[in-house]
């Protein structure tokens, strides 16, 4: 696909778009704010020709119909917190921001669902449902992301060990297809064996198959009690090797995270706030929930003994709001904190089988030496999804790019060798396409391209992404 194929936007197009959305919601040329030219891990800034900020499904449908008829590329965007460039309009055209579609439409207490528009922020969803004694199970770290963005990348988060990822918590989607038609897929139903699951295809498609304009989320009753354990270990290897033992014990933590001292120190500097323990180089952070203190204590005590038997230095208990806040605020700030500790970074969001996490982490230490680049990592030890950050520090851009290529090649090859995949939760966008292609093979990629073609024969919706 080449740039030349697409129609370049002119005054007539802008007038047409202004007849669909309100005039102030169609912004073009130099009036487009710099924020809309990149995401959180931008390699470069690429501006759309027009920024459209629609207020409802019908407007999105009309924009898509117009773009389809006129061969204009369209890129959907939430809050731009992505890390792989999926929301960057690399072919220009129209950028559709869902920032004005922020209504929480309906809390259905009989079917345990919440219906929302795509621009609602994750933090608003969790606050709203928790005030009503419900839990939206996924818990991605970036709380200022939109639910639309979360659906697009199939975001995972920290509670995946017990409650699964975004895909497991979506009941129904309203989607605008590339030709402007509106479809509903899924429903307020618990089971569904009615043909191919288009809903599950849309989830994780990074806005390449359709634009999500409404979502029905699955809720569960809010567990009344939650207790975290912060477990210091003498070294990362001992820490990570304990994880399969915990999983094998059939106790079910909500989250199992690993973290290293250096990243905790970054976070302390970034937040200006001390972490409750700094005695050790490596930590596991576990979370348990339930409805009575006794039930939760019974679970965590078994796991605490497993940790101590496996060589943990201690098991520290976080059982009050203040204590949990002191730990989880730091955990939530890791990405930003690492970013603040260097000049530029790129990331590898690989996912491997849970029993291979230790091997992969050990391998990152090897890559650090082999490629000559500083690496910081943290991640979801309990579900095998690791966040490995490659840091530029004082390197020149050219040296950084060279080292990145070498390090990424090594990391993704190792991930594949261990039975893993390129992305656990951040997606492919344009930044990870070549690694997806390399690890999944041509036959698999042709299937993806075939699916894309069924939805979008003209290739106008988020071109250049995923496949």
């Amino acid at each position, binding site marked *: 696909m080449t740039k030349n194929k697409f129609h370049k936007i002119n005054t007539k197009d802008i007038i047409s778009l202004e007849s669909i959305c309100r005039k102030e919601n169609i912004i073009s040329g130099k009036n487009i704010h710099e924020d809309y030219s990149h995401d959180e891990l931008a390699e470069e800034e690429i501006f759309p020709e027009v920024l459209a900020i629609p207020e409802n499904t019908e407007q999105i449908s009309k924009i898509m119909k117009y773009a389809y008829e006129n061969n204009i590329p369209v890129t959907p965007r939430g809050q731009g917190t992505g890390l792989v460039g999926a929301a960057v309009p690399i072919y220009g055209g129209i950028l559709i921001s869902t920032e004005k579609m922020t209504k929480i439409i309906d809390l259905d207490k009989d079917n345990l669902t919440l219906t929302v528009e795509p621009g609602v922020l994750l933090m608003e969803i969790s606050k709203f449902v928790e005030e009503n004694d419900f839990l939206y199970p996924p818990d991605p770290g970036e709380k200022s992301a939109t639910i639309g963005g979360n659906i697009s990348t199939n975001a995972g988060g920290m509670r995946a060990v017990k409650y699964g990822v975004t895909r497991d918590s979506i009941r129904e989607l309203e989607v605008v297809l590339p030709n402007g038609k509106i479809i509903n897929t899924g429903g307020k139903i618990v089971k569904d064996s009615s043909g191919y699951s288009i809903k599950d295809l849309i989830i994780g498609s990074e806005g390449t198959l359709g634009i999500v304009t409404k979502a029905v989320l699955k809720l569960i009753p809010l567990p009344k009690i939650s207790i975290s*354990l*912060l477990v210091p270990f003498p070294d990362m290897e001992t820490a990570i090797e304990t994880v399969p033992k915990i999983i094998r014990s059939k106790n079910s933590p909500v989250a199992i995270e690993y973290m290293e001292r250096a990243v905790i120190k970054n976070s302390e500097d970034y937040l200006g706030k*001390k972490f*409750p*323990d700094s005695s050790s180089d490596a930590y596991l952070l576990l979370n348990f929930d339930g409805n009575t203190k006794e039930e939760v204590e019974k679970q965590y005590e078994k796991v605490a003994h497993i940790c101590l038997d496996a060589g943990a230095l201690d*098991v*520290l208990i976080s059982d*009050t709001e*203040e204590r949990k806040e002191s730990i989880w605020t730091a955990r939530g700030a890791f990405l930003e904190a690492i970013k603040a500790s260097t000049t530029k970074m790129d990331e590898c969001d690989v996912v491997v089988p849970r029993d291979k996490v230790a091997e992969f982490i050990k391998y990152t230490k090897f890559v650090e030496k082999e490629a000559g680049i500083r690496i910081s990592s943290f991640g979801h030890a309990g579900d095998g999804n690791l966040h490995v950050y490659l840091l530029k520090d004082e390197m020149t851009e050219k040296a950084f790019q060279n080292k990145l290529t070498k390090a990424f090649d090594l990391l993704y090859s190792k991930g594949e060798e261990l039975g893993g995949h390129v992305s656990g939760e951040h997606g492919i966008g344009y930044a990870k396409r070549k690694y997806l292609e390399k690890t999944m093979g041509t036959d698999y990629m042709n299937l993806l391209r075939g699916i894309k073609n069924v939805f979008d024969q003209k290739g106008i919706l988020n071109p250049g992404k995923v496949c």
Partner: protein
Amino acid sequence: MNITVCIKQVPGTSEVEIDEKTGNLIREGIDTKMNPYDLYAIETAMKIKENNSAKINVISMGPPQAVEVIQEAYMMGADNGYLLTDKKFAGADVLATSYALSQGINKMDNYNLIICGKMTTDGDTAQVGPEIAEFLNIPHVANVKKIIDINSNSITVEMDMPKTVEIQEVKLPCLITVEKEIHQPRLPSFKLKLATAKRKVNNITFKDLDDSNPENFGLDGSPTQVLDVFPPTSDRVNERWKGTGKELGERISKKLKKLKFVKDN
């Protein structure tokens, strides 16, 4: 050095009901926790213990279930615990509480330093610490945010005043109440939980105290009576705005001018 730390069990949430007749908090059947400020007091004691050899004794006044906070203090590294508990202590106001605690402290190991949290989150008075010191006739410094030095004779601290910081050197024995920023409290240790599971908690009851006059304790010993308890009202208004940076910028500029927070040029 012997350090005594005063701790209290408080409701685990702010959604507590109030007994309309007595004006007291209804504590039965609700989740409890250690008063958050007392965690800073224990941590301060632990930091002193780490740098100088010290023994940490904790005391709490409350019903029998308040033993939980003493066990929690053991899990943070405290050495001995005392629970001041008796029906005669029930319904105590700030003065009667401070008096009972001062009587209880006299029945414990000798102390060189007493540390209290600045205040409790259920009473909010910040008076019990200083009043204990007055009853014990020892010097005291409230709102301590940093310990600059401690030796066998004296302690030098930074006291946080609303607009200034005052540095004070005080002779031991003395009492200090500590602020949040003094240290990040450590988390309770599961290892210490196992190690101290059988460590006893010493009960101190009315009959153990030097003062045998029941009229000095509990409701009888309380000159203040609570007429009403209600959550504080707030005139804070939250507004949430959405829009582009430009729109929001203009809007906040207009609002600040309207409120006369900035000059309208």
